[in-house]
């Protein structure tokens, strides 16, 4: 390294980059970035810039998140009392929880982090100008919005009552609701996911900057690579399952309906072959975010980089082998159940590697509790609870008792909400200076994180108890003795709702303020922090060359340097 001191202009936190030619300093006065490069509506709707497409996704997923959230609020209101007081019919309740599930899973959780942060950051992190296929990227957003809008319209005009799982033969033979249009909407939206995954895989393979070896890729990129593998290999199987449902519904042929000679378990196999790995589509990007936040706010290199990257791939691969644990009591063979149970325990190993290594990264680090770190810590704790309860459900005997109870509901919300959404919010806070050029208000940020954490636990922890005591899921009435825990859960949900509105308000509010975040407020490593905030359309004024390993934080430096990322910078700083 000492042979080329000029490649390290500002110490370890700057990564290692080629020097800037003096000619570029003239951009100082009027920085053109991806946001102010053009203002017309057309320049947004027809943009090929991955950063703008990321923002388009941000608008889409935020909208669907609040739609799904409104459905959840009404569900929790209904469950506040043992009788049916709000919705008056079990049928309406069925449609509402299906709407909540379909919207939240297919139109929020699956596209949220990859669509917003993945699109925005992946090319920046590997030092590329854009994704490999910008047009496909824009197309995937349009497919997503088309599918989402179609789903929303049909859910409002009639809806479906099958649950997001579309189980046959109820969905094919008995349900009188709009199963076919919903299936088509899900089928179409699947292509959005496939195109995103394909784009990420090709980009990671072919677009890395000189010196950005596989061993220097940020774990964010590794996690999105693993996610993309699941997207392109899992989604088509869901597509075929949904097509077969449509075929059976249209023509009354017994592919899945046992009364017509079909096999309902086959549908469950096809469905969960996608939908279990889909859990990792929602979770791995969350891990991607936490991988970046934890080293930055502890000022230490990530512990066990190779194991962390390997664990991400192992989760993606093993995630394809455990789908049968959704079907222990559905009539699949006992031996299949045993093997799926064993494999379920096996997938916990790489997940535990992640958690232990995050903890080891923090150990003896100078931990700084800014908002992104609060969300990351929330993720680690809640994901651990969600994961360990997942192991309980993965044990054959316990599953017989807990299957289809609120224990399952609590478990997967700890993974989906406690994991994915905490990470999503943490990531938005962490990269907001990069995305918008502005800091969010830190006090409100911390308050919001705290409210969400408290509200979340109050909502979902009582559901573990409810499920263990035997309250089944998907019922709109329940015996009176479950009311205390249900009221706690509903109270928690109201707190959670407030918690989600706080960041929405201050993020929008921050846009009115001047762009003074500077290029690297967190003094983080990583190529995305080396370019301006917001970045120019072509990402880097000078194509970067990478010379250092990832997470090149220096613990000693952390002790000496004052830390105040929220100090507005007087003059914007640019590359170099």
């Amino acid at each position, binding site marked *: *390294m000492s*042979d*080329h001191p000029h*490649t390290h202009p500002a110490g370890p936190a700057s990564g*290692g980059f*080629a020097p800037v030619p003096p000619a570029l300093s003239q951009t100082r006065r009027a920085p053109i970035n991806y946001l102010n490069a053009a203002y017309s509506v057309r320049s947004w709707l027809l943009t090929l810039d991955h950063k703008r497409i990321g923002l388009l996704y941000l608008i889409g997923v935020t909208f669907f998140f609040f739609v799904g959230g409104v459905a959840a609020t009404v569900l929790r209101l209904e469950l506040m009392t043992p009788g049916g007081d709000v919705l008056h019919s079990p049928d309406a309740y069925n449609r509402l929880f299906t709407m909540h599930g379909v919207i939240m899973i297919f139109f929020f959780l699956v596209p949220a982090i990859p669509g917003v942060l993945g699109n925005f950051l992946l090319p920046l992190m590997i030092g*590329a*100008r*854009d*994704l*490999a*296929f*910008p047009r496909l990227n824009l197309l995937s957003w349009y497919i997503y919005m088309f599918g989402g809008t179609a789903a929303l319209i049909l859910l409002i005009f009639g809806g479906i009552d099958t649950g997001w799982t579309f189980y046959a033969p109820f969905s094919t033979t008995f349900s009188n609701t709009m199963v076919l249009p919903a299936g088509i909407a899900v089928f179409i939206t699947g292509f959005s996911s*496939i195109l995103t*995954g*394909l*784009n990420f*895989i*090709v*980009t990671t*393979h*072919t*677009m890395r*900057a*000189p*010196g950005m070896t596989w061993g220097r890729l940020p774990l964010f990129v590794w996690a999105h690579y693993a996610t993309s593998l699941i997207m*392109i*290999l*899992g*989604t*088509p*199987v869901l*597509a*075929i399952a949904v097509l*077969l449902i449509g*075929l059976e519904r249209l*023509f009354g*042929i017994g*592919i899945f309906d046992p009364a*017509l*000679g*079909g*096999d309902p378990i*086959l549908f469950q*196999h*096809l469905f969960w*072959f996608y939908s279990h790995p889909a859990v990792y589509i929602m979770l791995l990007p969350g891990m991607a975010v936490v991988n970046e936040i934890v080293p930055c706010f502890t000022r230490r290199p990530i512990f066990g980089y190779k194991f962390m990257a390997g664990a991400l791939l192992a989760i993606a691969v093993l995630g394809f082998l455990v789908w049968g644990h959704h079907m222990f009591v559905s009539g699949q063979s006992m031996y299949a159940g045993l093997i799926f149970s064993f494999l379920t325990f096996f997938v916990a190993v790489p997940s535990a590697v992640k958690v232990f290594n995050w903890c080891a990264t923090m150990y003896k680090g100078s931990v700084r509790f800014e908002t992104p770190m609060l969300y990351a810590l929330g993720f680690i704790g809640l994901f651990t609870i969600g994961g360990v309860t997942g192991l309980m459900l993965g044990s054959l005997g316990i599953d017989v008792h807990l299957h289809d109870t609120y224990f399952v509901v609590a478990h997967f919300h700890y993974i989906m909400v406690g994991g994915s959404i905490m990470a999503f919010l943490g990531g938005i806070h962490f990269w907001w200076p990069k995305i918008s050029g502005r800091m969010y208000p830190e006090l409100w940020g911390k308050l919001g994180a705290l409210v969400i954490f408290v509200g979340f636990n109050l909502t979902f922890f009582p559901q573990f108890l409810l499920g263990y005591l035997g309250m089944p899921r998907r019922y709109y009435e329940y015996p009176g003795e479950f009311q205390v825990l249900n009221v706690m859960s509903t109270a928690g949900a109201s707190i959670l709702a407030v918690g989600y509105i706080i960041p929405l308000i201050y993020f929008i509010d921050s846009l009115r303020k001047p762009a003074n975040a500077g290029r690297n407020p967190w003094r983080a490593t990583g190529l995305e922090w080396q370019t301006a905030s917001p970045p120019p*359309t*072509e*990402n*880097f*004024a*000078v*194509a*970067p*060359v*990478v*010379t*250092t*390993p990832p997470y090149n934080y220096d613990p000693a430096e952390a002790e000496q340097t004052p830390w105040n990322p929220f100090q507005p910078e007087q003059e914007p700083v640019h590359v170099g």
Partner: protein
Amino acid sequence: MSVESPAHAAAHGAVGHEPSQPHGNGHGLVAHQFEDAPQQREAALLGMWSFLATEVLFFGGLITAYVVYRWKAPVQVAVASHHLNVALGCINTCVLLVSSFLVALAVAEAHRGNARKVVQLLIGTIVLGVAFLGIKAVEWTADYHEGLIPFAANWQIPSHDLEILAQRGIDADQFGLYKLFWVLYFFMTGLHGIHVLVGLGVFAVVAALVWQRRRSKNFANLVEVTGLYWHFVDIVWVFLYPLLYLIDRHGPGH
């Protein structure tokens, strides 16, 4: 950790390089996000391979359903399969294999920059693809006249087949699985047919583009990537043909 020497970095054409300018690939044929033509070619090929991985899983789900029912109702599947025309299926297999061969030749010619040859070979491929669909249409029409299309109004199990099923000890309430073979047959060959149709449309566009770019000779990637897709469509048929046509050909029930 290692340090990239500036010389090495310069060899990548990265240092001091102005991304907003048209970049140094000499002929302006590389899209803005790529550094150079080899990178663009690598991305295009890997993109198509990734897409084909998706397609494998798509047909994989369907073949899984097929395997489940083949295992669950071997007799019904065999009896139904005897209605398929092996001779036409065999001819169609040959037609697709030859078309794939023409595509392979077209890719080789595209790398030599020989636009005229490429267009001729692609037209040959399109002709063979149309022939494949034509033969398939003949088969489907015959099935319709026999009342073997489960989605059509005239569907019924031929009485001869009912006798054979009864002879081979199948209960009447299990006859539904006989119908399922036809559902899967039409679904699988129909889905494959759609892929053939898409391929023909794409080849028509590619042939036009190749002719348009015959002077700049910037069409090798295009032909190679669509060629990969066509080979995949061909391979799917190579699996479908034995799975659907060549069942229990020496067993009882003829």
